[in-house]
């Protein structure tokens, strides 16, 4: 006797013991299974991946040990794929939240273009491949850190903290702070004070960056039941905490100047860029951003009262990129002129 398993579409093709009846997906109301390659790319959060690659590359280039160019390229690829895998896991796990939020409801999993189990499989395979390749191409310290950062983002942040506490992105931000440390470890096989400083910069940058967005998207988060700071503690408390973390972040950006990792170019980016960051954070503090929660359709669509929060969110990305671009230029292009009095 010939038996063929029926396929449950919403389970991503997992076979089960139901009678073997053919399913016409065109007639069914289930979401389409046909997802293109672009959906896999969207699943990896390419915009987040770009910043991760950039900071990881800066850590690798700023490290005091020159790497084989091919090994360096593979290390960066592994950081990118590892980050993408973590992003895919996040999208699969948070599909219920994403479906409610206007900002995220068009993502591949909530729309059904990629079934949830398929997204989990994709994330798992990519995670394993990136860690394995990192271990082979560089060293086990870098591979271990990559594995830890993926696990931290998936388990600690996505599965545990995100739905539990308004401190979710403060602690969870550690996952996003790992790339420069991984890059550094890939080159040197160890983690130095400079690598920890680069970690601290991104770690302390995350709260003002994420909360600025949350201030003008708090309606979205409230609808999804995510206890982001403006939802759980209110807009005023969030604006104060943005200011506090901005101070800590700017203090951390001075770290590379003390150790000598950053030269003149970095000093200008940290000084002038940091002053503008502080100015924008002060504007947010003085504003009434987030006082009237509501959801907008587009990421940059914002009410007049929330404009200061939008400006800080957008500039925070630019400032972090500027800092790491300065490090990249100084160490990659050989234009590192140390400041007088710096340890370097």
């Amino acid at each position, binding site marked *: 006797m010939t038996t063929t398993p029926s396929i449950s579409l919403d389970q991503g093709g997992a076979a089960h013991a139901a009678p073997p009846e*053919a*399913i016409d*997906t065109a007639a069914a109301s289930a979401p389409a*299974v046909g997802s293109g*390659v672009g959906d896999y790319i969207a699943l990896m959060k390419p915009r987040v991946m770009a910043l991760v690659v950039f900071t990881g590359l800066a850590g690798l280039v700023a490290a005091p040990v020159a790497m084989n160019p*091919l*090994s360096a390229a593979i290390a960066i690829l592994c950081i990118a794929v590892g980050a993408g895998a973590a992003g895919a896991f996040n999208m699969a796990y948070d599909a219920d939240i994403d479906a409610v939020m206007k900002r995220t409801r068009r993502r591949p999993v909530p729309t059904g273009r990629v079934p949830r189990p398929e997204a989990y499989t994709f994330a798992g395979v990519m995670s394993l491949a990136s860690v394995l390749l990192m271990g082979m191409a560089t060293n086990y310290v870098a591979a271990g850190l990559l594995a830890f950062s993926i696990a931290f983002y998936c388990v600690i942040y996505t599965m545990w903290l995100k739905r539990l506490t308004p401190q979710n992105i403060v602690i969870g931000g550690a996952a996003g702070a790992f790339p420069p440390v991984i890059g550094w470890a890939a080159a040197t096989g160890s983690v130095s004070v400079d690598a920890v400083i680069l970690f601290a910069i991104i770690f302390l940058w995350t709260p003002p960056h994420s909360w600025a967005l949350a201030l003008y998207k708090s309606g979205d988060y409230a609808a999804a039941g995510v206890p982001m700071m403006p939802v759980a503690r209110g807009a005023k408390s969030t604006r104060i905490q943005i200011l506090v973390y901005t101070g800590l972040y700017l203090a951390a950006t001075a770290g590379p100047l003390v150790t000598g990792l950053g030269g003149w170019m970095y000093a200008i980016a940290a000084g002038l860029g940091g002053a503008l960051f502080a100015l924008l954070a002060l504007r947010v503090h003085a504003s009434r951003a987030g006082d009237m929660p509501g959801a907008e359709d587009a990421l940059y669509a914002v009410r007049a009262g929330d404009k200061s929060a939008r400006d800080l969110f957008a500039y925070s990305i630019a400032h972090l990129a500027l800092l790491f671009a300065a490090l990249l230029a100084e160490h990659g292009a050989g234009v590192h002129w140390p400041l007088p009095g710096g340890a370097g």
Partner: protein
Amino acid sequence: MNQDEYKPTVKLTPEQEAARNKRNGAIAFGLVAFVVLIFLTTVVQMTSNWNAGAAG
């Protein structure tokens, strides 16, 4: 099971079939790329170790 007796249980629309083919192509490309990267990594590591051995 005889290949001739196999009957698919899911009827896909032409668009879905096209999308599945694209996904399969992407997976195949990914696998080949992974194998190539493993090969290149092995060559780089072997060369590095060989050079280190020759220098020592």
